[in-house]
């Protein structure tokens, strides 16, 4: 059974080779059958990869330690859920998951691409085939999850309790759906370069794919951030850690792509830029995939520990990033450039958005790779951390965020900034009011923090203004407004929701950083501490026995005004005896959108316990905002605008409808 999975993977590689070559020849000589073969082969390739992945997952579920990968990364005593999620909790398995998602997206293009021009579809699938073939070869040769052990060991080696966490289990697949989703945009870009023409359908197709990838990537990043927040016990939600940056860069450039694709679709402008952005976004995704998994980020020398894998990774990066950029340099001039527009216009606003986002991406790239470069060329080891990113990223983001509400209110081609500003007066007044209220009524609020809160509200009210204006506020009666509001295209809701979500996230970040409180102190049982108008009483430390761990649980009571306990919060240190590992379980209590966060430290000599308490106002909005952004993306995806029919007799209603659903 295991070997069937192994064989299926090899067979998938063979099919990917065919997928990468035959359709390409087909488009060169104009043979319809060769072009059409891409679809069937892509679907078959996905089926085989899925079979292979299912076999590996079942080997994990059944604890088949004759598979080296299972032996290294699993243990028969793991709970079933974590046995299965363990399939992608390691390098080999995660690369197989990556390929699985790649072939899955390829087969989606094949199945729902009926309304694409035949040669575009064939080229896109051929490029997908190339990526698939190279990655399958990488998996088979340097990271094969099906390497066998004979005789098989009787017990697996891994029972790491820190990794047994549902957040960590779901996080990589979401992230990969995002990374790999951008591969479709990349394939479209390269296909256009190969053909030397950009079809009108191009932008219509690239945008939904970007949206899909972007929605998943947003989810993946938010999930990772939340995991670090509650699991590491440090109370932070973003550390500017290289691993986080690796996923944030494609997100930023993907967001830029999302916006430039709108211009391309509506106005046939920015074509070449959009193409380049597609290539760059996927390149950053590749970088993200490899930098995290190969350990290059922690040190250049990690490359040397497994040279064959390292060299292969370098080859892949050079092949796809270098190759596509070279093709771009060669062919971009052959493409017809798009139309022109005034600087003050929707297009202009979107270009500005792109300028800020790509520059921000570049600064993060520099900050992330600079230590590697320094280490490679000198003996110095340096780290670039939060101070650097705060200094470079924030100045870029603030003007962008201020400008966001203007964009959707400007007309295409020739906009009127003054009119847009007038429409935004109400939102501006409300945001100003929010600044004043925050500054005057919240103790210890700095001017900067109050302005930050105002920025969040500005985004939120700006998004609402957009919806109000589009439904005809000011010129129509309430009834017509309601009617128009209900009839607005979903993409408009999508835009507004995404911008609103961004505002919520900004509000959450500002609330946590600007208005939060932190206390570190040693507490003895019975003592109370005040933090941001809340009184906490430390009850003591109690030993608790769990299924495979023992924990010392610190119990705290939240007191009401009269001094009576109204809620219990417990924070714990867990000891897993099998691994002799300790983990910290933070005690979190959510009140509205805010949270009290308690993390337990060591015991002091005089019978107290070190306790770190944070008051984190509005912290949940950080991830709530991301959820709203995802919802906005999903709304946009559901827009009927994306349902373009195929020409001629092949136009069938059912086909057109399913195409819209992708």
């Amino acid at each position, binding site marked *: 059974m295991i070997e069937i999975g192994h064989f299926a993977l090899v067979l998938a590689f063979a099919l990917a080779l065919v997928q990468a070559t035959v359709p390409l020849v087909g488009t060169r000589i104009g043979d319809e059958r060769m072009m059409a073969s891409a679809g069937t082969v892509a679907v078959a390739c996905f089926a085989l990869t899925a079979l292979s992945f299912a076999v590996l997952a079942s080997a994990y579920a059944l604890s088949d330690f004759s598979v080296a990968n299972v032996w290294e990364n699993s243990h028969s005593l793991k709970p079933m859920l974590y046995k299965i999620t363990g399939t992608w909790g390691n390098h080999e398995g995660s690369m197989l998951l990556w390929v699985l998602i790649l072939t899955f997206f390829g087969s989606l293009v094949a199945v729902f691409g009926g309304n694409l021009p035949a040669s575009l579809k064939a080229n896109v699938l051929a490029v997908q085939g190339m990526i698939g073939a190279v990655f399958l070869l990488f998996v088979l040769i340097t990271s094969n999850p099906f390497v066998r052990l004979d005789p098989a060991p009787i017990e697996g080696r891994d029972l790491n309790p820190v990794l047994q966490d549902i957040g960590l289990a779901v996080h990589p697949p979401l992230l990969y759906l995002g990374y790999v989703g951008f591969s479709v945009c990349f394939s479209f870009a390269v296909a256009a370069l190969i053909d030397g023409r950009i079809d009108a359908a191009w932008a219509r197709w690239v945008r939904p794919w970007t949206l899909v990838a972007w929605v998943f990537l947003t989810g993946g990043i938010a999930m990772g951030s939340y995991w670090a927040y509650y699991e590491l016990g440090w109370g932070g939600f973003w550390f500017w850690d290289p691993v986080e940056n690796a996923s944030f860069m494609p997100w930023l450039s993907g967001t830029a792509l999302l916006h430039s694709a709108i211009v391309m679709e509506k106005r046939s402008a920015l074509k070449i830029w959009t193409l380049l952005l597609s290539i760059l976004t996927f390149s950053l995704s590749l970088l993200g995939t490899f930098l995290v998994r190969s350990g290059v980020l922690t*040190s250049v020398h*990690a490359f040397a520990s497994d040279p064959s894998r390292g060299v292969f990774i370098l080859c892949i990066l050079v092949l796809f990033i270098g190759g596509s950029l070279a093709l771009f340099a060669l062919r971009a001039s052959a493409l017809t450039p798009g139309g022109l527009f005034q600087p003050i216009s929707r297009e202009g606003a979107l270009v500005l958005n792109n300028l800020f986002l790509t520059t921000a991406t570049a600064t993060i790239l520099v900050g992330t790779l600079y230590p590697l470069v320094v280490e490679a060329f000198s003996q110095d080891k340096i780290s670039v*951390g939060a*101070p650097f990113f705060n200094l*470079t990223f924030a100045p870029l983001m603030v003007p962008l965020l201020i400008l966001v509400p203007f964009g959707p209110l400007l007309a295409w081609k020739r906009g009127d900034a003054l009119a847009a500003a007038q429409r935004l007066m109400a939102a501006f007044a409300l945001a100003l009011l929010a600044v004043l209220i925050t500054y005057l009524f919240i103790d210890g609020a700095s001017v900067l923090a109050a302005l930050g809160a105002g920025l969040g509200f500005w985004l939120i009210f700006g998004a609402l203004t957009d919806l109000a204006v589009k439904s005809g506020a000011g010129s129509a009666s309430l009834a017509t407004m309601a009617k128009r509001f209900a009839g607005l295209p979903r993409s408009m809701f999508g835009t507004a929701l995404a911008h609103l979500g961004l505002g919520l996230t900004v509000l959450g970040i500002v609330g946590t950083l600007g208005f939060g409180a932190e206390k*570190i102190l*040693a507490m003895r049982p019975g003592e109370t501490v005040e933090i941001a108008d809340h009184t906490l009483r430390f009850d003591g430390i109690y030993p608790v026995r769990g299924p495979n761990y023992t924990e010392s649980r610190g119990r705290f009571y939240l007191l009401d005004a009269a001094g009576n306990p109204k809620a219990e919060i417990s924070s714990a240190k867990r000891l897993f005896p099998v691994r002799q590992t300790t983990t910290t379980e933070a005690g979190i209590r959510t009140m509205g959108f805010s949270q009290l966060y308690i993390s337990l430290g060591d015991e*002091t000599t005089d019978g107290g316990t070190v*306790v770190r308490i944070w008051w984190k106002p509005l912290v949940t909005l950080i991830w709530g905002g991301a959820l709203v952004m995802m919802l906005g993306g999903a709304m946009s995806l559901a827009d009927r605008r994306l349902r373009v029919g195929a020409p001629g007799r092949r136009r069938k209603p059912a086909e057109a409808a399913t195409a819209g659903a992708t």
Partner: protein
Amino acid sequence: MTRKQKRFAVILGGLAFLGAATGLTFYALGQKASYFYMPADLASADVQPGQRIRLGGLVEDGTIVRGADASVSFAVTDHESSVKVSYKGVLPDLFREGQGVITEGSFGADGMFIADSVLAKHDERYMPKEVAEGLKEKGVWVESEGD
């Protein structure tokens, strides 16, 4: 403006913007990147009090002193020389004697290193590889402490 002039203006504006961003980036790199040192490196390096650095090494045996409140002091060593560190806060789960750690902060005027963060090895994603490598270079690798 003609088509060409307009494009030129846009490109110029973009370049100016990028230039500003690049300037800011490199200014920030110069200011905010913190160098990594092992205790023995400090003798040869010119580290000013107040300059932000990362200090890595092993927690020296018998040097952990816990204060009455949440403050703690310990020494970080690479078996050549050692540096006294003070820290206030919750130590990582894996913090113990002989453990590889990375502390981040700056030297006070009295030569005491005041850390605002302490990372221990195996902190899942935050493994101080630099410490391991630094120790290997100095020939004091932790795994072979059998003798």
